[in-house]
């Protein structure tokens, strides 16, 4: 059976050219960047080049970055790094939105549990946009706000530039989880002046297991992995040079082809949204109709369980996802959808379809052809 992958928000395939660029760092240029000798220097310069290339793409003037193992570690480092008890400018209060990825949400809650910080929740509207007034009212000077730039489940893009301004007016810091955003938006830290930003490479056709936390140089960030002093003491452990090079290569490619790819993605996305809403009764879009990731279509269906829909579609050859599905068979409604005010039983019927640069029009066509029947079958069961 030919299988069609429509789950790019989960992860994305690598371009063979990116793999090519990584390969020498497994075999010939295998040195340890911390070594003093020739081999070490070669590896070190590759890491250094990658760092500079990424910061340049992000147009950052007063930021640096720490290479990490991915989005999750970056989010952890951001929240924990400014709140550790030994931190001299320690932050004691974190504001998060109710639609954060668990990498932020659970990290914040853990910090509250162990008494490190106090958490307050921001409010969002029915589309998942942060309410700016609410943010403003809740800010104090000694606060870290963490707001997801583009949410993975509903695709809504927040106005992070504006949110950063609001935070800075109160003297607060802003971290943003840009794991999804970085795959589709040209991040420009000159315009969007966040204090910390997390990315993970596998969402933009880079390798899995690598990401980085970009941070303003003036921020006092304590390392969470302590060891040999790598990354200016902010993250111990020998660099994974091939993955770091792969992330750089993938990001460069994404920036280079951005406009044409986003046009392609937006066309497919809009076709998916329009046809599903038109052809499937009891379907509605989740997330913002306009401010949304170009590749992201998400829905809830009345009378259908998302978990079953994903299984049925997979059996028909289409790989999609649902916020309520669970690998060990304990489906529960997505917290994100509940935060938008979607009732629990409807939230169980979530479907997320995300396309990518390799998605072809006829693949979307055949998906849209089978979906109404599958939904119908499940409803009649």
């Amino acid at each position: 059976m030919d299988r069609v992958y429509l789950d790019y928000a989960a992860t994305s395939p690598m371009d063979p050219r990116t793999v090519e660029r990584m390969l020498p760092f497994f075999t010939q240029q295998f040195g340890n960047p911390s070594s003093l000798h020739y081999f070490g220097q070669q590896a070190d310069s590759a890491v250094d080049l990658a760092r500079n290339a990424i910061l340049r793409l992000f147009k950052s003037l007063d930021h640096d970055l720490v290479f990490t193992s991915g989005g999750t570690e970056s989010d952890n480092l951001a929240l924990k790094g400014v709140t550790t008890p030994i931190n001299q400018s320690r932050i004691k209060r974190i504001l998060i939105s109710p639609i954060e990825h668990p990498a932020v949400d659970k990290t914040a809650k853990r910090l509250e549990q162990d008494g490190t910080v106090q958490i307050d929740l921001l409010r969002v509207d029915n589309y998942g946009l942060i309410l700016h007034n609410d943010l403003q009212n809740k800010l104090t000077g000694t606060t870290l706000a963490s707001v997801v730039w583009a949410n993975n489940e509903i695709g809504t893009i927040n106005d992070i530039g504006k949110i950063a301004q609001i935070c800075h007016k109160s003297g607060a810091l802003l971290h943003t989880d840009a794991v999804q955003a970085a795959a589709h938006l040209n991040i420009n830290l000159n315009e969007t002046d966040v204090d910390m930003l997390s990315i993970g490479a596998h969402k933009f056709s880079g390798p899995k297991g690598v990401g980085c936390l970009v941070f303003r140089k003036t921020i006092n960030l304590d390392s969470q992995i302590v060891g040999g002093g790598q990354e200016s003491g902010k993250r111990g452990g020998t660099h994974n040079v091939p993955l770091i090079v792969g992330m750089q290569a993938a990001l460069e490619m994404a920036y280079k082809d951005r406009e044409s790819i986003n046009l392609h993605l937006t066309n497919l996305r809009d076709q998916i949204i329009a046809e599903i809403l038109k052809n499937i009764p009891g379907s509605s879009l989740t997330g913002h109709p306009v401010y949304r990731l170009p590749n992201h279509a998400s829905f809830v269906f009345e009378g259908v369980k998302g978990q079953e829909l994903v299984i049925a579609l997979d059996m028909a050859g289409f790989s999609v996802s649902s916020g309520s599905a669970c690998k060990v068979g304990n489906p529960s409604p997505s917290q994100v959808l509940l935060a938008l005010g979607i009732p629990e039983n409807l939230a169980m019927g979530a479907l997320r379809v995300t396309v990518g640069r390799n998605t072809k029009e006829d693949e979307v066509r055949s998906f849209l052809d089978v979906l109404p029947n599958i939904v119908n079958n499940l409803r009649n069961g």
Partner: protein
Amino acid sequence: MTGKKVVVAMSGGVDSSVTAALMVQQGFDVTGIMLKLWTGDCESNDNACCTPEAIQQARQVAGILGIPFYVVDVKNRFKKIVVDKFIEMSEQGLTPNPCFYCNQHIRWGVLLDKTLQLGADYLVTGHYAIIEEDQEHIFHLKKGIDPKKDQSYVLSGLDQEKLQRTIFPLGNYKKEGVRVIAEEYGFTVAQKPDSQDLCFVGSNGYRSFLSQYSTSPLMKGNIRNLSGSIVGEHSGLVNYTIGQRKGIGSGFQSPVYVIDKDIKNNEIIIGSKEMLKFSSLTAGPFNWISGSKPSFQVEYDVKIRYKSNPKKVNLLEDKDGLIRIIFNDPVRDATPGQVAVLYIQDEVIGGGLIHEVFREK
């Protein structure tokens, strides 16, 4: 049949793993599904699944075979249909067979419905039983060839509609052969022991399960002998099954057994081994595999427990739609609540709940 979509019910055990392998080998488009059943207490730590190990094992097998695998949650329905029924029947002094209900209503209910909804043509399980279709397109259910493993008894609740959508690839295998295949595929579960207990009662056995979940508290009561004298006290009816020797006190001159439970008066009746012999029973309503009631003019074999040997019987219509099953030779272990399954040679003719048992006069 090649290329047809099938769902294999996978449990992480060796039988269902080999079942999946055989279906892949035969060219079917195979999807593995594991039912997440209700497993008692451990459910309270919510996100944790009670048998992460079994899920992991099944997932690993699916990985080796390159087939998709999903876990489907049927906890609530399993609890309602199988567990609550088990508790309720036990409280009534019956000895239920939950696997029978699970097969009838969960595997060939919820899972078969799901299988068809998901666009597959067949549900495949690792039961040791055989389905044969005759020229009139009637589906016959027969014993698996391994006498130690034959599971036709617990499948006697299936009907034509269910059987025509079912495949049992292991019916013609012996257990040892199945283990060999599992070894060949490198399944780590190849030597996993067969499961013994009811899947939901946990490691302390069904009595402790019942004392935990029973809604009516255990009530002590009298133990009487057949002449009506009170000879002791019992700890609650669910703790006793007919034929049991243990737990009814000592000091009797000859060995005594539970020979009856008087639910109404919460009493246990004891007697000698001879009193355990039953000459007939009534059972029903019956599920007839072929869909219609068979002739009562012939001799049948009956199994009155999953693990009991078949006994020769004749049938008579009884009142209230029940059937009276008359044993050629009296039997010992007839218990209301179990299923009486009628066979002609290796073929299952039908199954019905044992209603009442009658002692030799």
